[in-house]
């Protein structure tokens, strides 16, 4: 019961923000929810949001895990996605023909690279105990150059029927492929959490590493594991991003996505200091960010100025979600409740020993 409540509150804020944003969009135009069918696939604002947020959702899931276990964030996720997808593109282009088989092989290879990157970051964090942000700063700095080197040239194009189907729509299926891939990823992740103790272990390590060790958990291994999982997340995100774009731009692919991923974790009500986490919170947080971006565009804010508006919005959100405001909000509701309860009491008291005193009668009524 209490957990339901706590979890309810955790997702309450991002959900209500989503609601407000949608409301703003509806004021702007009542056709916000309208969905049209073009070439047998669904298009419209909602599908576009789901489509656009795919990579961010996947990255923020991995980011949540890493945050929980290591009490820090990986700022190299965007760069890592650029590297994994460059490997994907390189293998695909050198394979000769592009078939479902070569795509699969190239994708799996990029996942392996993702795991290698996760191992690298994980080693720095778990074994050498470098602060996660500092540890991942290394790759953040060097990563896009590495991706460029793997590409071998500027922005190789993979324009091709099959990859563009992955990036947009497979004929006969009405939903855009990245949306389906994201949904599959979320389901697989839910299964992972359900069939393993990843959540319990990661929360225990993040909350009290010493106690976790004394209870037989290997904190180093758990941190490694979460960074490797994040590595897989970057590979999947990179895969989606590159098939969407149809070419590999190692400089601009998923640029600045790491900050949005961290933000999604925070908006989802997760403590950035590690410990307890809620994946659903982060997912909602990721979609909220996407909706925010698109709302600002729709309100015809100058694209160059969007970041400033976004910052203001996020500051408001963070202040609202802070424990300080939460506490005083709780105090406020208690105060209102006690005033209401008190008014009833006063009336009964009046009835017993001060009947007929009109002044207290009035005040009691007013309070009611």
């Amino acid at each position: 019961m209490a957990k339901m409540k706590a979890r309810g509150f955790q997702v309450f804020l991002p959900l209500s923000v989503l609601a407000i944003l949608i409301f703003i969009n509806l004021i702007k135009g009542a056709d916000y929810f309208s969905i049209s069918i073009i070439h047998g696939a669904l298009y419209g604002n909602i599908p576009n949001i789901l489509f656009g947020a795919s990579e961010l959702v996947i990255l923020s899931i991995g980011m949540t895990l890493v945050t929980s276990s290591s009490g820090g964030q990986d700022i190299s996720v965007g760069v890592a996605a650029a590297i994994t997808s460059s490997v994907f593109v390189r293998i695909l282009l050198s394979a000769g023909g592009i078939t479902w088989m070569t795509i699969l092989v190239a994708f799996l290879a990029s996942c392996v690279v993702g795991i290698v990157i996760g191992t690298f970051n994980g080693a720095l964090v778990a074994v050498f105990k470098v602060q996660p942000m500092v540890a991942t700063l290394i790759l953040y700095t060097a990563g896009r150059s590495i991706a460029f080197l793997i590409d071998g040239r500027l922005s190789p194009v993979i324009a091709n029927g099959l990859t563009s189907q992955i990036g947009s729509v497979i004929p006969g299926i009405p939903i855009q492929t990245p949306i389906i891939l994201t949904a599959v990823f979320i389901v697989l992740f839910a299964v992972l959490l359900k069939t393993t103790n990843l959540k319990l272990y990661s929360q225990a390590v993040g909350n009290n590493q010493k106690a976790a060790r004394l209870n037989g958990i290997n904190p180093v291994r758990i941190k490694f594991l979460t960074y490797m999982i994040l590595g897989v997340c970057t590979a999947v995100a990179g895969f989606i991003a590159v098939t969407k774009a149809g070419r590999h731009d190692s400089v601009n692919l998923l640029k600045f996505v790491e900050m949005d991923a961290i933000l999604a974790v925070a908006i989802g009500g997760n403590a950035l200091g590690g410990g307890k986490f809620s994946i659903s919170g982060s997912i909602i947080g990721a979609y909220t960010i996407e909706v925010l971006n698109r709302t600002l565009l729709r309100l015809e804010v100058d694209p160059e100025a969007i970041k400033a508006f976004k910052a203001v919005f996020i500051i408001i959100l963070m202040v609202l979600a802070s424990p300080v405001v939460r506490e005083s909000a709780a105090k406020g509701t208690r105060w209102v409740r006690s005033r209401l309860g008190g008014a009833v009491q006063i009336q009964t008291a009046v009835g017993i020993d001060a009947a007929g005193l009109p002044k207290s009668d009035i005040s009691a009524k007013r309070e009611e």
Partner: protein
Amino acid sequence: MQGICKSFPGVRALHNVSFTLRKGEVHALMGENGAGKSTLIKVMTGVYGKDAGQILVEGKAIHFRSPQDAQDFGVGTVYQEITLCPNLTVAENMFIGRGRYAFVNWRRMKEETTRLLDSLGIPARPTQALSSCSLAVQQMIAIARAVDMDCKILILDEPTSSLDEDEVQKLFSLMRELKSRGVGIVFVTHFLDQAYEISDRITVLRNGEFIGEYDASSLPQFELISKMMGKALDDVSQMKKMKKHEPSAQDSGEPVFEATGLSSAAGVRPFDFTIRKGEVNGFTGLLGSGRSESVRAIYAADKVTGGEIKVNGKKVKIGEPIHAMKLGIGYLPEDRKGDGIIADLSVRDNIILALQVLKGFFKPFSRKQAEGFADEYIKRLNIKTASINTPIKSLSGGNQQKVILARWLLTHPEYLILDEPTRGIDVGTKVEIQKLVLKLAEDGVSVTFISSEIEEMLRTCSRLIVMKDRAIVGELTGENLTESDVMHVIAGGGE
């Protein structure tokens, strides 16, 4: 303080509690776990607001909005769990949060700290990191800090729970000194003898309610205990009976755990140790004698640097706690907050943690199974919690300890190590835990029990290993198990 009420979600922590502190007196605040002592103190010091009632200082009603507010009024506090910054130096801790200036005069700060430490006889250097001091010294530094702030009212929340007898006496003389200067001292403690030794008056709380205020000199100890527990004296007499109860440890039992030449990175000298099936033994010695470090070496909580270990006669290697767990060893650590609880996780997760880890990463308990375990042990150990999903950090200290105990009982260990399981716990729970230890031993579980209260160890253990300066200096069994024998061994050994 009059008619103080305070509730938390699901729990009414204080109901109509009154408390009066006079100038220049030591006033003991007593009660069992969850009686509301800590809550009352937090209201007193402005950490929590009050739901109803008023606080009067020198006849004037006041309202503390924050701890800073209370501090400015001359209310100084030293909490049960040390709330200083371990990674700062002693001097920094002494002055942190007190400066009204933007700049720090490091030299003066150091001098002042040295003077203060010297005047109170605290063995620490100002430039030393706080974490490198023992718990006892940290506690005394916290008190020194409060003293230095010229407080009119000094609140000591279980200051003696980690001090040895000598240090307690030092603290008491300090308290008497402050008393003569007109400081009113609120003294929260579980130690009855200490309460009688130092206090003028005693206020008793039970289940968040005010039971009464008494003159220490006119309240017999038995009556105080029964007032705290809210029961007739049955339980107390049971406690006495237990004293006579000779634990049924047979020297003939099979050795469950044997160590030879065991040493660890924490600096215990290589030691030999054996425990038999169904035996309750204990490590005793003053604080810092290495008793905790010894059991940590057994469990591989610290890095083991040498020695051989046999479990049930078979040679094994214990390099990590998980190895010990798999061999049926459980360990309740001394530092509950730092090593025991996973503060943000629920009572349920904290209870199932060890068993879940033993079961394996890929075999999580179903929600129903986990809840079943938690419910069973909450009932069995009578853990007071709003629900099984409450974060453990919002439970009182004694109930947190029971949760950790439940965690290990759930794994059905063959050998259970309990390091200070009764520290900071009320009389009733203490007796419960002692009974539980004896019951476990009867069922064939071997237990190593460590406690700062020697009398408690004499009651539960059939063999005591005496330590001094990180080495074993003697072993006592049978009729040699008396307080004076222990003192004798500590005094005589290891010169």
